[in-house]
């Protein structure tokens, strides 16, 4: 059955080839006379299919349809041209492929710029040592980059005033100052002052006034750090003292006669520590406290320490030696 089918197929294809070459159906059938009956059925089908060739539209329909085709084609071509022009004019509007990344980029850009503006605004009232102070300075630097040389003087003048205000605020606060920050601030003040002079933005009266302010601020810082420096050294020495005393505890216990003196020494050190704490917390009232402490206690070392940190350290050294000798 299968072989019959395949042979039929081959012969049928040969038969079709002959037909393609332009032979009549009768001559083709004659050539394959053994398969006459089978081919007759095939030929009937082919002829039935061939009958559809007679399916033809009327002449009127053809001409009318041609007119329609022309008009439609013209509309389509003009539409195509219009679309092309639109695409030329605005690529963004007509191409969603461009639109999506553009919207994303714009939204991110707007978000970043708004958040940057927000942080810049938030940083406008910061003082050195705050987290956002760096943002403020960066913004100022950016301002400087985009400002023409002629207007830089004005900008430096505003920066100078800002720095002076910051310095005032720093001096007014009671919290402990960082030496590095203060140094940087003073450097900045000097730099902007020099720049103002360079640009000849300051008048004579202004110059004198600002110079006075700067000097005042520098003095303020110096005083503040002198106090802080003294306090630090006192505390350091007091710590070392207490450590040494703890080391000598065993010896002291072995010599009960000298316990009273040791106790006195420890009392002294405790008082000194208390004084130190009061210095750190109260700032301006330090000196008064120290005087009252001095009146109450008989140790001369502490009295010296309030005047000069160097002197105090030396005297604390002497006190150490004294306590050691006592311990022995």
């Amino acid at each position, binding site marked *: 059955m299968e072989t019959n089918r395949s042979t039929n197929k081959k012969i049928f294809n040969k038969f079709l080839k002959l037909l393609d070459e332009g032979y009549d159906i009768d001559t083709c059938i004659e050539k394959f006379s053994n398969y006459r009956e089978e081919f007759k*059925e095939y030929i009937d089908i082919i002829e039935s299919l061939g009958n559809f060739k007679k399916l033809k539209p009327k002449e009127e329909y053809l001409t009318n349809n041609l007119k329609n085709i022309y008009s*439609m084609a013209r509309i389509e071509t003009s539409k195509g041209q219009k679309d092309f022009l639109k695409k030329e004019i605005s690529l963004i509007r007509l191409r969603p492929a461009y639109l999506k990344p553009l919207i994303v980029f714009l939204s991110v850009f707007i978000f970043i710029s708004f958040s940057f503006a927000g942080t810049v605004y938030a940083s406008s009232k910061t003082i050195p040592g705050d987290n956002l102070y760096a943002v403020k300075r960066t913004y100022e630097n950016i301002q400087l980059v985009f400002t023409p040389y002629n207007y830089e003087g004005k900008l430096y003048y505003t920066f100078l005033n800002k720095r002076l205000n910051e310095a005032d605020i720093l001096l007014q606060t009671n919290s402990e100052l960082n030496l590095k920050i203060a140094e940087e601030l003073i450097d900045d003040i000097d730099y902007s002052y020099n720049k103002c002079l360079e640009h000849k933005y300051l008048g004579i009266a202004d110059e004198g006034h600002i110079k006075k302010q700067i000097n005042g601020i520098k003095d303020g810082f110096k005083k503040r750090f002198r106090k802080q420096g003294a306090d630090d050294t006192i505390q350091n020495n007091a710590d070392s003292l207490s450590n040494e005393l703890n080391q000598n505890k065993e010896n002291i216990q072995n010599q009960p006669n000298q316990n009273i003196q040791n106790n006195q020494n420890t009392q002294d050190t405790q008082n000194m520590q208390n004084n130190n704490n009061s210095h750190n917390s109260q700032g301006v009232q330090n000196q008064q406290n120290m005087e009252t402490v001095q009146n109450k206690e008989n140790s001369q070392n502490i009295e010296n320490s309030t005047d000069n940190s160097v002197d105090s350290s030396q005297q604390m050294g002497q006190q150490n030696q004294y306590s050691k000798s006592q311990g022995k």
Partner: protein
Amino acid sequence: MDNIELDFCVRNFKKTGDNSFFEKIYRHFFPRILRFTVLNVSEVQNAEDIASEVFIKAYRYIRKLNLNAVKLKPWLYKVARNLIIDFYRKEARKGKKVSLDQYLEEKSAADYSNEEIIDNVLVFKKDLDIEFIQSGEEKIINAEFLKKLNTLTEIQKQVLILRFVEDLDHKSIGRIVNKNEIAVRAISFRAISKLRELMK
């Protein structure tokens, strides 16, 4: 119209854009394309629209594409076939009954007599305004045959129509239906064998 004349028309239409050359091409090919679409699409109006659309595309693209007389014929049929596929897809989306097969199957399922089916074919003829076959006998044969033809698969039907109605060779048909020559031969033989069994 032979290939030399067609080539001349295509070349001149490309060069000059003169509609008279296009008209010659249109008059030669439009009846064939219309016949092909009518045999493939159930409603005549749709078949006419598809055939017109093929020639709108031809008007636009003959000037742009590198077509000669040999390539033009399969190209037109391929465009028609693609548009028919698009049409079926759209109809399927709408949820309508789509092919002529289904249409006639429904008719036979509803126990319509042969005459009614012939009437349907006649209606289809009237709508199309086609000079159909003259004698009464041939009409019946064609209607019955059409019914049997529609029991074949789409591709078998298309291959048979292209081969024996439109007189295209297997290679060109292969290009149109996206198959190779051997596959097209096999399809046409299988389709004819099936029709033969149906005719018995």
